């Protein structure tokens, strides 16, 4: 009996192994590219988000019971007594049953946002590197991003393995490396659809990462800041 989606999975794997040949066919229309991306990515992202939220609620509940770990006390630099008091006054976590319906709304919106975000910044990066041609506009980038992200969703599938108890810590480094590769992989789709050299497409995603990397650090800083707030 054939395994469902096995052909699609094989094609995606082939594309990831040989990215320079992955986008040789004629590009699909934007609507079809977007539909195919969402059809693959939304179920995987929902599973990932569901497991992440479930784990986070469990961890939050445990933190409320056991108080702040030592590393958090050191990292936050806050007064340990104040931190303990803060943990004692934290509200109880909501039940997962009440949270998951929101994921059905938030996850697809988040994926669409990610797609547009990547398109805008990669397009800008490609322009900065001189990879844009007059006849190909932003719509071409949107199609390329949708095609690449459909294949890169395989990373979300692999990431689900990290939820297996005991494997998460072991797979941290390989998953980070895979994420890095999947980030650059979008560049091959960009280059193929815009008709420029692959290095320019890949470099455009790198420019995007450099310009936005510091903003990501800013977000992390904001989260740390929230940890440091004590009554």
């Amino acid at each position, binding site marked *: 009996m054939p395994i469902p989606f096995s052909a699609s999975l094989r094609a995606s794997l082939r594309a990831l192994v040989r990215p320079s040949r992955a986008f040789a066919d004629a590009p699909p229309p934007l609507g079809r590219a977007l539909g195919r991306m969402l059809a693959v990515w939304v179920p995987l992202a929902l599973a990932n988000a569901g497991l992440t939220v479930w784990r986070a609620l469990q961890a939050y509940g445990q933190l409320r019971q056991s108080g702040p770990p030592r590393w958090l006390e050191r990292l936050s630099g806050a007064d340990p007594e104040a931190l303990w008091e803060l943990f004692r006054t934290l509200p109880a976590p909501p039940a997962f049953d009440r949270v998951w319906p929101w994921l059905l709304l938030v996850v697809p919106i988040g994926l669409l946002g990610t797609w547009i975000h990547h398109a805008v910044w990669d397009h800008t990066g490609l322009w900065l590197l001189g990879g844009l041609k007059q006849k190909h506009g932003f719509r071409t980038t949107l199609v390329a991003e949708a095609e690449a992200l459909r294949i890169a969703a395989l990373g979300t599938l692999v990431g689900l393995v990290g939820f297996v108890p005991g494997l998460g810590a072991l797979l941290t480094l390989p998953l980070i490396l895979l994420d890095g590769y999947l980030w650059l992989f979008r560049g091959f789709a960009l280059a193929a659809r815009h008709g420029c050299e692959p290095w320019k497409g890949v470099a455009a995603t790198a420019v995007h990462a450099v310009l936005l990397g*510091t903003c990501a650090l*800013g977000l992390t800083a904001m989260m740390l*800041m929230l940890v440091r707030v004590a009554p």
Partner: protein
Amino acid sequence: MRRVPWVALSVLALALGIRLAAFLAPLSNLMPGCAFKRLTGFACVTCGLTRSVLALGQGQWYEAIYWYPAMAFLLVLAPLAALWDVRRAWRGDAYLPLPTSRAVRFGVWILLGGIWALQVMRGI
């Protein structure tokens, strides 16, 4: 789709985001600072941007430009771009392609590098 002023809507969303960010201003002193600067001792390319956004959200224009001088470009260009986009959408015109001139692209790279150098020199 040509009738949708995407740029103007993005500017509106950005303005709303900046205004909302002002509510975080009272917590800004608790921020641990830029990890890149802490690691290397030099400002990163967006060092000062958070403080600039927080100041702008509170209507402190001078402080916003002090913390991140490139914010002045944004303050001038964003309303102009939004107005141009509304006019474009009203007329049903297509978006213009980005300029292909090497000089313009080179200018943007210099601008980005210049902002970074300026922030490093000022010790922001």
